[in-house]
């Protein structure tokens, strides 16, 4: 069992010192997602300025994988356009669902590549995806709100 592949130092660093944690104003959408099997939870807010992800703020409780993933998401997505951020989400999801066969691109996924090892632990994939799914949900809501306005 490749525990070192799962718990890479980068992941443990993000877990101990999560980036961008805490709920902030302003925001257009807030969601609360739960992983019902283990109870990991996240409340996540998205603030869009025009087409840019201006802020992603969150409050989360859970295992090292879910916490580190939220921290990496925060690093990666803030400042990107919604389209580019959705592209990164697709890349990260593909990495998680690739059963360890996908070689991640460090240029685009940065610290996110550390999660490659998680893909070999099916029970943990949901941990890694929790914050990403919450972000996707909140961002879709924020975009719809803008379109309706």
């Amino acid at each position, binding site marked *: 069992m490749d*525990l070192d592949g799962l718990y890479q130092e980068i992941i443990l660093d993000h877990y101990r010192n999560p980036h961008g944690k805490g709920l902030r104003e302003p925001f257009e959408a807030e969601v609360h997602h739960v992983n019902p099997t283990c109870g990991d939870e996240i409340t996540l807010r998205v603030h869009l300025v025009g087409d840019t992800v201006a802020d992603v703020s969150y409050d989360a409780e859970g295992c090292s994988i879910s916490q580190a993933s939220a921290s990496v998401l925060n690093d990666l997505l803030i400042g990107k356009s919604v389209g580019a951020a959705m592209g990164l989400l697709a890349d990260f999801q593909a990495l998680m669902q690739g059963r360890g066969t996908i070689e991640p691109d460090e240029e685009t996924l940065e610290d996110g590549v550390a999660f490659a090892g998680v893909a070999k632990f099916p029970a943990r994939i949901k941990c890694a995806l929790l914050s990403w799914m919450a972000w996707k949900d909140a961002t879709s809501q924020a975009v719809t709100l803008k379109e309706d306005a």
Partner: protein
Amino acid sequence: MTVSTESASAYDVAKIREDFPVLARRLDGDKPLVYLDSANTSHKPQVVIDAVADHYAMHNANVARAMHQLGAEATAAFEGARDKVARFVGAPSRDEVVFTKNATEALNLVAHVLGSVRGSRQIGASSEIVITEMEHHSNIVPWQLLCERTGARLRWFGITDDGRLDLGALDELVNEHTSVVSLTWVSNALGTVNPLAPIIERAHEVGALVVVDASQAVPQLPVDLGSLGADFVAFTGHKMVGPTGIGVLWGRYDLLAELPPFLGGGEMIATVSMERSTYAAPPSRFEAGTPQIAQAVGLGAAVDYLESMGMKAVAEHERAITAYALERLQEVGGLRIVGPTEAVDRGGAISFELAGVHPHDISQLLDSQGIAVRAGHHCAKPVHARFGVQSTARASFYLYTTTAEVDALVEGLEHTKRFFKV
């Protein structure tokens, strides 16, 4: 004449382990399996596996409705299992034993039919249902659904800081409005063994019915339903060395006979016309459709197995291993037990936190060493909220657990701490 003694010294764990094929397994990295998740589901001895296989291989037929020889054999085996279960839990009558698919279905069954009763036992907007804060979701949600349907009010016993039921408000909480008190005998999250007698006494004083979730009790304790005093008791086969897919609802016969059916279909009727049907007597009334035949046969073999060991001896082993584990775990720095820390009125499930390491990560690290524990809320979110934690890791024991396995757990936790540098 030989006198059988059920002393702990006569209890040979090594020999018992030989009855359970899976306990000899080696996992990834050639690690021996250390299975500390029996409160979740127990393993099955070869005799249970054989009973299920033999039923399918040699006697398979539908029950009650097949008139041929195999049908008679299958019916005899299925009904024989009911006799065995009734004897095992000291049920006054075999007709009080209703087979369900698990404890969850048993609890839903009783909550549902009590909600359909008309007349003096009718549950309505002025009624109260009392549960406890330490229930498994299976003994919370069915009552919430009942309250939604009837307008009744759901109330609950709180828990003291040391993980015991707070009976301080017993007389106020259980009052003349109370229709049902439903509580767990042994908590799957805290390990607490609840004092049923005073609660049953108070409930009956005010005319309320008592439902006991015995999912964690029947596997570990000698049970005599005839003297317990409860009105309904639910338990589940897979936690007592039996197969999955079979549970039991026991109910006092006079009450079962009063209650309307749960599911409609074959086997539960007396006669059917296009306009209306009349219903069979209990237990058939509550067993619509082809029942869990092979699973019941397996459960019969499971109770034979438990009886051959003696439930007093099983309970004593559980107590001893729990006491040992409580002591050893408290030697681990940074570990906090959520639930009673002494082996008094306590079952063999120990939930704990380890400072700086999330339960999910604890279980991952232990799993890499072949040690199986549960991490999460153990289907008991409210009790976790009560203790201000989102999740815990839980080690639980059974009749095949050894002190060496507890030692392996303690070592595994020390390794976990080193890995996460806490």
